[in-house]
């Protein structure tokens, strides 16, 4: 990956897209091989690497009891990128949650909850974005928003790894696609009912 690159990871269900992304984050240890960041193994960099990445996974880390504003400010604070009240409001307005900032997340729809997770990408200074199925349950307007966020990020020299089946319309940076092959039955035997 070089600055300004988008890597789209595609492949059939169960081929290991999420596993790959989790390995790149450092959440899972690979069975073989290693992930390097600026020439050094990510395990040895640890917190320094964590500062350079942001990850949005399947489970989007939005607390049901907290409202969007609290969710955004707390998760940014935890990631070491504190937001002021106004910055957080603007970010939420951009993802289309203006007027719903004070609603606990359990009253939001799935799409709105995902939008509130996306608000973390605005004002996010991390170099590498790792987004897993980030377009799921989003409407067309939100998909366009994600695309423009990624484009902006790439034009600033950022990098992104996105696992999705949808086509991404990116206006800046260079685009690569990584297609993972379906799992072969050679490795681990598939589960099945006895005939």
């Amino acid at each position, binding site marked *: 990956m070089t600055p300004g690159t988008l890597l789209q990871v595609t492949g059939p269900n169960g081929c290991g897209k999420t596993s790959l992304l989790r390995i790149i984050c450092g*959440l899972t240890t690979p069975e073989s091989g290693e992930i390097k960041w600026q020439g050094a193994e990510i395990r040895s960099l640890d917190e320094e690497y*964590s500062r350079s990445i942001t990850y949005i996974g399947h489970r989007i880390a939005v607390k049901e009891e907290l409202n969007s504003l*609290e969710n955004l400010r707390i*998760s940014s604070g935890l990631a*070491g990128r504190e937001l002021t009240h106004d910055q957080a409001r603007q970010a939420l307005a951009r993802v289309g949650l203006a007027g719903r900032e004070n609603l606990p997340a359990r009253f939001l729809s799935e799409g709105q909850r995902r939008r509130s997770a996306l608000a973390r990408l605005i004002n996010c200074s991390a170099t590498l974005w790792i987004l897993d199925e980030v377009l799921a349950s989003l409407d067309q307007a939100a998909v366009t928003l994600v695309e423009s966020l990624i484009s902006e990020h790439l034009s600033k020299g950022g990098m992104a790894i996105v696992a999705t089946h949808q086509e991404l319309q990116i206006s800046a940076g260079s685009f690569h696609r990584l297609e993972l092959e379906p799992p072969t039955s050679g490795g681990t035997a598939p589960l099945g009912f006895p005939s």
Partner: protein
Amino acid sequence: MFRWIVVRDLMLAWRRRADVLSTLFFFVIVTSLFPLGIGPETQLLRSIAPGVVWVAALLASMLSLGRVFQSDEQDGTLEQMLLTPQPLYLVVVGKVFAQWLVSEVPLVLIAPLLGVQFGLASDTLLILFVSLLIGTPILSLIGSIGAALTLGLRGGGVLIALLILPLYIPILIFGAGAVDASINGVSSHANLYLLGALLVVSLVFAPWATSAALRISLE
């Protein structure tokens, strides 16, 4: 960062007050059942008081411990915490500290009041309070290891009790021993110092073990 963890957990606890209160009521009810069941024999009640209050505190802390990491694991917040640019050690200390503030401090505060129904003298009530004040953070710290190890397992609640309760034995012995000594008119300093030493040791090692267990659970 530490501040964010503590503030967040306190906020969440406030929004789920019922969980916190249920632990407290459990403690109150369990300790109140003994005088009711045994009858008004002052001498007997006084001699079992330290053990009863301490065992009830252990069981009450088991109730709240299962929840320390559970909801964060389910909605993906724990993954995000692993990816924060701070040592996981600090994250764990923050979460355990918040859990202690929310679930254990109310027990410590109400314990002297419960001690009255066992006919404890005022200086013994003070020792009970101090021993719980030093002892309950150890319960939270050691319990967090079990909570991290059983994360995501079905029936984790029972498993955590089987894993952790044996480790609580030294705390129970020194904690109840301190109160017992005070009842018998002996100095309880030795027991309290030992509890303090256990607190320091568990503060150093428990978050480290919990961090390792969390990394394994989330792989």
